[in-house]
């Protein structure tokens, strides 16, 4: 397996979507009062990531969360959760789907009459396990969450953070691959909130479970692998934070971008996506209309002005394809993969948008082009 292929398949396996949403619309109300709360949303949540969903109140975050959580029927579009299409599922089957999801709410919603242990056991009792195994599992998760000495306390005898940890234990005890959390830190003070979030992060790492977290709390954004912003029922931005960071670091080392500021780099990185091309694939054909800007992550490409005559070999870190985007002229050369290549791609519109917002970047690009000529 080539290096490029290995890097690519690692990316792919991560995004073997735990949640896949396609063309999702949702309405509330009937007749004249019918109001659209979600508009044509597409979303894929890869395994093992913490995804933070933000957006103003009333933007449809909670609706999206409850649709993913199988708490509402899907009206229009497709929602696949853990490989199960939710659209058209009967209520009884939706309940089954819920059993494989962990839920954490703004309020802990623990039964005041039950001890921490009993509250967690209520969730374990959904599983067909012998009684002692249920008990052990509940004790184990509570201990793991640092509540080993609070197991037989009722919520009233615990602090806010401890209660929320019991609620997290209840969500985790059945080892779900997906956790949905709605403002889990809203009712907590700063330090306790931090503690709870760190805990979630650790759990996502250890158990490779996906956590979708709705929050207004800016203090916890740093744990996100991915940030989704929802406005008026539409996903307006979807930033793979960790991936963007990786691209930024890579860009910073590329000769093309070496003098470009971090702010611009991250703007570029946010808009870029990865593509994998096996050896021999034609990435750009001479005479076509230019639509993409490329940056090689792994592997190398041949640049041919005439068929079979390689005039230049471009290596990892080098960029190509910008000329046609700048000038609007057709492609001046053909570019094909010399070996398997992994490239970062920036679409024409995004490329121009970045150029327009950043005079230094424009100059930089022009300089690169000038030098090449």
């Amino acid at each position, binding site marked *: 397996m080539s290096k490029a292929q290995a890097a690519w398949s690692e990316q792919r396996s991560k995004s073997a979507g735990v949640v896949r949403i396609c063309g999702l619309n949702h309405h509330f109300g009937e007749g004249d009062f019918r109001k659209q709360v979600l508009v044509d949303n597409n979303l894929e949540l890869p395994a093992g990531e913490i995804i933070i969903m933000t957006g103003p109140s009333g933007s449809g975050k*909670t609706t999206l*969360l*409850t649709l993913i*959580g199988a*708490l*509402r029927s899907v009206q229009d579009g497709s929602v696949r959760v853990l490989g199960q299409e939710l659209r058209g599922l009967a209520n*009884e089957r939706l*309940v*089954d789907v*819920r*059993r494989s999801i*962990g*839920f954490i*709410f703004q*309020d802990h*919603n*623990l*039964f*005041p*009459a*039950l001890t921490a242990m*009993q509250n967690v*056991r*209520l*969730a374990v*009792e*959904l599983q067909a396990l012998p*009684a002692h195994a249920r*008990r052990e599992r509940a004790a184990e998760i509570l201990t793991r969450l640092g509540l080993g000495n609070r197991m037989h306390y009722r919520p009233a005898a615990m602090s806010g953070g401890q209660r929320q940890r019991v609620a997290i234990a*209840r*969500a985790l005890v059945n080892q779900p691959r997906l956790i949905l959390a*709605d403002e889990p830190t809203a009712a907590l003070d700063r330090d306790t909130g931090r503690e709870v979030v760190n805990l979630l992060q650790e759990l996502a790492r250890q158990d490779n479970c996906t956590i979708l977290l709705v929050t207004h709390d800016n203090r916890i954004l740093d744990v996100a692998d991915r940030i989704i912003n929802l406005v008026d029922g539409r996903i307006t931005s979807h930033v793979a934070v960790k991936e963007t960071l990786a691209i930024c670091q890579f860009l910073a080392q590329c000769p093309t971008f070496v003098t470009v500021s971090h702010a611009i780099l991250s703007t570029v990185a946010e808009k870029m996506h990865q593509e994998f091309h096996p050896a021999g694939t034609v990435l750009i054909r001479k005479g076509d209309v230019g639509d993409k800007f490329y940056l090689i992550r792994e592997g190398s490409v041949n640049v041919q002005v005439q068929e079979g005559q390689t005039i230049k070999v471009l290596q990892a870190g080098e960029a190509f394809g910008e000329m046609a985007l700048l000038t609007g002229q057709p492609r001046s050369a053909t570019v094909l993969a010399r070996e398997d290549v992994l490239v970062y791609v920036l679409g024409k519109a995004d490329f121009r948008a970045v150029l327009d917002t950043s005079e230094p970047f424009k100059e930089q690009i022009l300089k690169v082009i000038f030098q090449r000529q």
Partner: protein
Amino acid sequence: MPWSRVPLAWLILTHQKRRFVLSLAGIAFAVVLMYMELGFLSALYDSQVALLQQLNADLIMSSKAKYTMAINEALPRGRLYQARAVAGVADAYPLYVDFEQPSWRNPGTRGSRPIRVLGFNPADPVFLIPEIQARAEQLRQPDTALIDRESQETYGRREQGTVTELSRRRLRVVGTFSLGTDFISHGNVVMSDKNFLKFFPSSRGPGPNLSRVELGLLKIAPGTHPGTVAGVLRTALPPDVHIQTKQEFIDQELKFWHDNTPLGYMFGLGAALGFVVGIVICYQILYTDVVDHLPQFATLKAIGYRDRFVRRVVLHEALLLSFLGHVPGLGMSYLLYGMLVRATGLPLHLPPERVLLLLGLTIAMCTVSGILAARRVITADPAEVFA
């Protein structure tokens, strides 16, 4: 570990001790209401047949025209002799009853009131009340009688040795017994047949003295069957008498009161009101519990519990309430029965069948409330917990 599952219903119900105790008190109140109404109903029926229950007879002979103890309708004494001659009849003896003529003077206030007088031959074992049979010999003395201690207060003093007037004739009380009042008599007096004749000579119309008796009490020979002997008697005797087993006679009397009074309706309605009050109280308790725990129940639904689980929890609470509320209700009713027996003389008993019936009603009461209250939790939208 005693529980394999978390006893959710029990824990929710008992979490707030004060509220729990108040809940049980509410249920117990409804239970007591039902016990009281049904107790009164059966006590009133029982008191109508208390005298019949205390008669030492296997078969009862009455005039064909007598359909209730509330009328005086006698039969010729000769029929008793005829009955004695029938195979299977061991003995036959008369009971004289009059509640129309006798009037008892309160020795204190000197006011007179009607009273029921029972006459019998002191040689015959007519009553199952030991106090009467024990004093049978004393009753042979002229102008003597026994009086029912449970006769109404308005009859005045009644202890042994009291001297007063019965139908304007001097009478000495030689003892008391316990029988109880009913709708037609507010007091009872027992005397010998001789005295009965002296006090009420014109009794039973024309013909020889004591020739007409109110009831003929028949004992059957050992080893014979009352129904069979009654059948033989019916063919052997003229059709002016009616032969029934003691139980048939009692049932006929109960049916008369059932058909001719609104007792069943009145007290049945009272018990039904208790039942409804119970439903309201129980519903209030369960509904409050459900509403207080709505986020928790919605959470259970969100994490994958089905509606039927949540409904079961509420119904389980209802069942616990009905059992635990019934116990103090039963205890309280027992105490109240005792108090009422002392105060009114009503024959209030607590037979096991009534306890079972009312336990069943209590369960039904709480189950209905449970079903109503559970509807609220079923409508709870699990998506609401995210709002």
